[in-house]
């Protein structure tokens, strides 16, 4: 009896060490893949840039010694155009995926996503108002306020008798998203300068075409600051698995935690939408995909979701700007093509009956 217990204990200890090793290997492999994909994405485009030129250009700007010379035109394509765009795509993908993972956990809704629940449209509206008024500094703040307002509106509408079912949350999110989209389109038409249609499309479907180092700064700092806070809250997110009462009985201050985390999501989504418009489905697809690799525990899920989110959007944006070269698709078209089938699989899944 005692002997059996000890053996079982050793076996699971060994199994746990193996699982941890597998996870760390997965993290290392995905970080490596992200670096390779980012480098390749900078090299790909209408003007041919060799991988060695990419590395040399980046190396020179970072002040690394011993870098070969790069032609000025190539250097500016790499450093001024493509690298900021790829880095912005990485930060936005990571931020949106992380937002989705947090929303799915604190609302216990597998369909939660910043786009489906209207946050992205709200953020777009906030951002567009500021862009039209021309106060560039306040852009992320306005997008944050838009996202927060949309979040509060969606959850208030979805709440009936103290409970929010996933289905109702998506329906109210749809209404708020439509309102945000209508508001965004109206503000752009009203300003009536330049190519309104393209600008509307970029805000509503998302586009990384206008990325600059400012975009990198906004999305990157939001990801680092807010994302770190969220990842450090992983244990508290675990506690929500069995619902609010269970979380409270595990010592979690449920309301404070939920609103702090949803506020962080609004901040993150706001910053991402401010630089890229409302890119859909990233927050829906990635957490479900990554859960299959990492398991549902947030201490493993969240870091991997960040890496895969970055990887996903860099690839999607590279497709968006190269598939119909020289024309460019809004990247939201690519993410929707992948995201909608995922959404359908989710609502057809075995527990869909409970979502009414």
């Amino acid at each position, binding site marked *: 009896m005692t002997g059996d*217990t000890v053996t079982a*204990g050793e076996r699971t200890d060994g199994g746990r060490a193996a699982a*941890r090793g597998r996870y760390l290997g997965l993290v290392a492999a995905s970080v490596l893949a992200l670096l390779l994909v980012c480098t390749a994405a900078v090299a790909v485009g209408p003007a041919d840039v060799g991988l060695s030129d990419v590395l040399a250009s980046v190396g020179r700007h970072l002040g690394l010694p011993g870098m070969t010379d790069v032609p000025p035109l190539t250097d500016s394509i790499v450093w001024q155009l493509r690298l900021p765009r790829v880095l912005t795509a990485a930060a936005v993908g990571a931020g949106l995926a992380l937002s989705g993972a947090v929303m799915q956990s604190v609302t216990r809704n597998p369909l939660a996503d910043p786009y489906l629940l209207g946050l992205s449209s709200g953020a777009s509206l906030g951002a567009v108002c500021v862009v039209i008024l021309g106060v560039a500094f306040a852009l992320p703040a306005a997008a944050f306020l838009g996202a927060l307002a949309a979040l509060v509106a969606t959850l208030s509408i979805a709440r009936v008798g103290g409970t929010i079912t996933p289905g109702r949350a998506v329906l109210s999110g749809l209404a708020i998203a439509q309102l945000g989209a209508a508001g965004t389109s109206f503000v752009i038409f009203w300003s009536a300068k330049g190519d309104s249609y393209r600008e509307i499309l970029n805000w509503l479907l998302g586009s990384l075409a206008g990325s600059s180092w400012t975009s990198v700064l906004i999305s990157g700092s939001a990801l680092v600051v807010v994302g770190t806070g969220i990842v450090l809250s992983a244990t508290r997110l675990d506690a929500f698995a069995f619902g609010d009462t*269970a979380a409270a009985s595990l010592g979690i201050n449920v309301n404070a935690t939920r609103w702090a985390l949803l506020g962080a999501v609004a901040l993150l989504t706001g910053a991402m939408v401010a630089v890229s418009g409302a890119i859909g489905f990233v927050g829906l697809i990635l957490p479900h995909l990554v859960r299959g690799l990492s398991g*549902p525990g947030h201490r493993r899920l969240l870091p991997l979701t960040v890496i895969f989110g970055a990887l996903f959007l860099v690839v999607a944006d590279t497709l968006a700007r190269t598939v119909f070269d020289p024309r460019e698709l809004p990247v939201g078209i690519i993410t929707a093509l992948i995201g909608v089938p995922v959404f359908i699989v989710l609502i057809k899944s075995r527990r869909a009956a409970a979502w009414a």
Partner: protein
Amino acid sequence: MGVKLDRVSFRIGGTTILDDVSAQLATGSVTGLLGPNGAGKSTLLRLIAGLDTPAGGEVELDGTALHGLTRRETARRVALLEQSAAPSVDLSVREVVLLGRIPHRSRLFGDFGGDDDHRVAEESLAMVGGGALAARRWHTLSGGEQQRVQIARALAQRPSLLLLDEPTNHLDVSAQLGLLGQVRSLGLTAIMALHDLNLAAAYCDRILLLHRGRLVAAGTPAEVLVPETIAEVYGVDCDIVAHPRGGHPVIVFSPSSSLDQETGPA
């Protein structure tokens, strides 16, 4: 020592849910919380779990007033089993039991796969005879297995008080008996809300009987479960006989002469 309820009351809006409930429960005893639907059983459990704050009065655990503790401190002393809870993601049994370690973890990020947490989780699962379930997915378990795993999760909190809200709901009879026997064998102070008077009579040291938010009777099953009191609270007619083997009271209901309600215990 043990649990002390001192003139506890609770209101929602203007409605009184619990009114002036006082009781003293000894360490290591198993107490059954009985009463018709809406009597205030779940509310009282929530107050004892520190999830809600009483409008008046105080809940004390081993001499410490609960309202002076943080939620985390309470969660290290009191564990609650809710009625039929289900996780929103597909957790393994081991992961569910590990949730019980959350109140003991550091706030930031937690202890990454701490061996201590895993050992406590394994011990807890072994205590409910669920060691073989560890790798199973939650959704593949039977109702009785799920409840046993929930008890293991509660034990992983290392509580001094275990609260159970209708733990036998939706269980078949063998799972019901198995579960309540399990609770008794733990030796922990336990309070459980129950619908089945006979299960309460068989497995509880003491009974608290609630009716419309008031404590109408408290004592051993033989003291509390008498035909007059049951008729007054549940509105049903019954006889009490001694269990042929255990000697504890068995309530035999008389369906034909039920008084005026149909909401008797199932």
